[in-house]
């Protein structure tokens, strides 16, 4: 019996589409509901961050980094500050290091909350999204207390912080952590263990570890495939070697290792681990110290180049900076994790249905601001 001839149809998903997480456009070649080819088209949010950076003094670049990964601005600022500090060879006060870790990890929780909630939204569950945003709001309140801003902070400066934390911040953070532990159980109840959710995500879009490594996938997507690579562990920066935390890995608990469910669940567990780190950092936080003590008056790194990588919520965030001895970078390059993670979608999304492509895209958790830069 010969196969029924069916014509393929090109379907433009985006740049205006509710589930492309911004202005991503996916050119889908579809045969009925089955997608045979996915071609991501990017660049709709290109703001030439790297070229801008070549015309700005080092301290003026900090706010721009936050606008790249706008859901994890603290993490981007942290990475950039550490890269320049490595060039300048600055020794930071203890209190600054602890506060930076606290903010970076709170930011990781906030970012993963968006990822988890939006992933639920992608497979059709609306309520978990609101629950996740309820907790994210608490974190944003904390950030607002400290920096005055809720999304883009310009808080972590090269050599220090913009302000010290206000009185009452530590107590409020403890309060949040106490509440948060219970809330994670709520997400697991409404989403993680839901039969329909498991049907929609388990065994879908399996990303084998070899493919993930070949494409340069990092972060929770890589760890969801069972590869144990967390830069906080393998190459500890800042003071991450002082904290006890686990690196959650995908185990294929509901299906195959590296499916959408694994990537989702790695994020849920990472939030718990981050909460643990924040708690430890708060316990050990030195009570005094000027957060601006090491702030350099004049930033003119010596001639040379540096590549510094840190673990952003989406994966390995690298800054490659070339200095020619002036007060502006000669070249700035950002290795954005979401860009590399998105590259794998054609490989793992082929042959699935349109609904699955949405789920796979959601599980990769991309931020277009960082992909287009």
């Amino acid at each position, binding site marked *: 019996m010969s196969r029924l001839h069916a014509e393929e*149809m090109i*379907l433009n998903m985006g740049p205006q*589409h*509710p*589930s492309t997480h911004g202005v991503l456009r996916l050119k889908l070649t579809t045969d009925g*509901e089955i997608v045979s080819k996915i071609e991501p088209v990017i660049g709709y949010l290109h703001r030439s961050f790297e070229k801008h950076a070549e015309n700005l003094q080092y301290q003026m670049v900090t706010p721009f980094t936050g606008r790249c990964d706008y859901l994890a601005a603290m993490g981007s600022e942290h990475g950039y500050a550490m890269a320049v500090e490595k060039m300048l060879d600055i020794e930071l006060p203890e209190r600054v290091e602890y506060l930076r870790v606290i903010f970076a990890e709170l930011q990781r929780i906030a970012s993963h909350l968006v990822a988890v909630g939006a992933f*639920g*939204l*992608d*497979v*059709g*569950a*609306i*309520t978990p999204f*609101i*629950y996740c945003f*309820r907790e994210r709001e608490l974190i944003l309140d904390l950030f607002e207390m400290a920096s005055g801003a809720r999304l883009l902070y310009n808080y972590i400066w090269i050599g220090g912080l913009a302000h010290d934390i206000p009185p009452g911040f530590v107590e409020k953070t403890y309060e949040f952590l106490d509440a948060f532990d219970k809330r994670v159980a709520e997400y697991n109840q*409404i*989403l993680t263990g*839901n039969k*329909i*959710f498991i*049907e*929609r995500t388990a065994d879908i879009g399996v990303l084998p570890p070899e493919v993930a490594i070949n494409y340069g996938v990092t972060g929770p997507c890589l760890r969801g495939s069972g590869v144990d690579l967390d830069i906080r562990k393998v190459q500890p920066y800042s003071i991450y070697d002082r904290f006890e935390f686990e690196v959650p890995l995908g185990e294929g608990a509901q299906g195959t290792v590296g499916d959408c469910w694994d990537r989702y669940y790695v994020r849920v567990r990472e939030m718990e681990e981050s909460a643990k780190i924040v708690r430890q950092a708060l316990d050990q936080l030195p009570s005094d110290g000027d957060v601006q003590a090491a702030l350099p008056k004049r930033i003119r790194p010596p001639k040379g180049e540096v590549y510094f990588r840190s673990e952003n919520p989406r994966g390995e965030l690298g800054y490659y900076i070339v200095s020619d001895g002036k007060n502006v970078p000669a070249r700035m390059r950002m290795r954005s994790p979401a860009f590399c993670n998105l590259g794998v979608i054609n490989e793992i999304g082929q042959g699935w*249905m*349109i*609904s*699955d492509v*949405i789920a796979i895209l959601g599980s990769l958790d991309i931020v277009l601001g960082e992909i287009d830069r």
Partner: protein
Amino acid sequence: MIQTLANWILSFDILSGMGYPIAWGLSLFIVAALIFVFVALNALVLVYIERKVSAFMQVRLGPMRVGKFGLLQTVADALKLLQKEDIIPEKADKALFTIGPWTILVASVATFAAIPFSDTLLAADMNIGLFYVVSISSIVVLGIVMAGWASNNKWSLYGAMRSAAQIISYEIPVGITLISVVAVVGSLNLQTIIQAQGGAGNLFHWIPIPVPNWFIFHSPFLFMATFVYLIGGTAEINRTPFDIPESESELVAGFMTEFSGLRWALFFLSEYANATLVAFILTIIFLGGWQSPFVNYSSAQIALSIFSVIAVIWTVFVRMKSGRLSIYPLGLSILAAISAWLFPGFAVWLASPGIFWILAKVAGIIFLLMWFRWTFPRLRVDQLMYISWKVVLPLAILNLMGVAIWMWLTGEIQF
């Protein structure tokens, strides 16, 4: 009801000159208008309730600004939709694009003609009522396919095709489930089906727990059939977890993508009309329609007392532990029990059948549908088909055969 109304009109001296045919036509028009008003108001109220229910489940307030507690929000929204520019895409099939939404609305409004609201209040007492309801309500899919095809949009086309596949798959198990009740009653007349559910008896004929004679308690098979119908009905009206035709996160808005203004409002209206319809059918077929759950006033008193004792225990032992104590359900049940003992008239009213009971049951089922919507993720289209053909349909057939055997066992029918 139309004949009654016509006779009533003719009973006035001034109007009696118009003759029976004109009076009948006038009554027909009045009844149709009443049904339409019911459907429109119902959508207006349900949209508000849906928003409030979703807000309640999502720890929000919901609409609060327009009117007290946002009560006028949906009115404002409806007015806004009526004012909107009427847009027909250039490449659309204009005729189908215009007819599509009206087809859906007409189908869902027309179905209400056969729905009995009480023992006297129904538009048309047909002896094939159930058949009429099932057949007319499935015209809705025709409108959806028309709308999706006419939009000339790939997303709309996907939505329409999914919808057609979905409704056709679920019509079959739903039909077979309804036949299993028809097998028990021996009639397609909805009033006869409700009247057959009067009185009280044992749970599943033998288990000595007094329950009303509703078909959900008739046999384990009809008990299962109730849930089969609930699943099938939810799928037929395209609500979560079966909302794949308009799945917001995948197909933008499915078959409604290109519609705006009044036409979009018609889709919305018929969506809620269909949800109400499914709740009505479920109530009529399995939950006794307008029958009261209490046989007489003393059973109302006793049942309410038992219920409030359970509510007290549940509140104290379950809700207190979770730290989220809500006194409203508890207070209401105790209030109802006390008033049932203090005012026998209240208990008598509770035990008598009427429009209150059918509306209360329908409201409960609609709340259940909303609960589904704000809790579950969405199924994929092939999973939906799998459930329909491999789970629900065999179950429906099993129920039909099981009911027949059950009736033979209990002696309801003899060969």
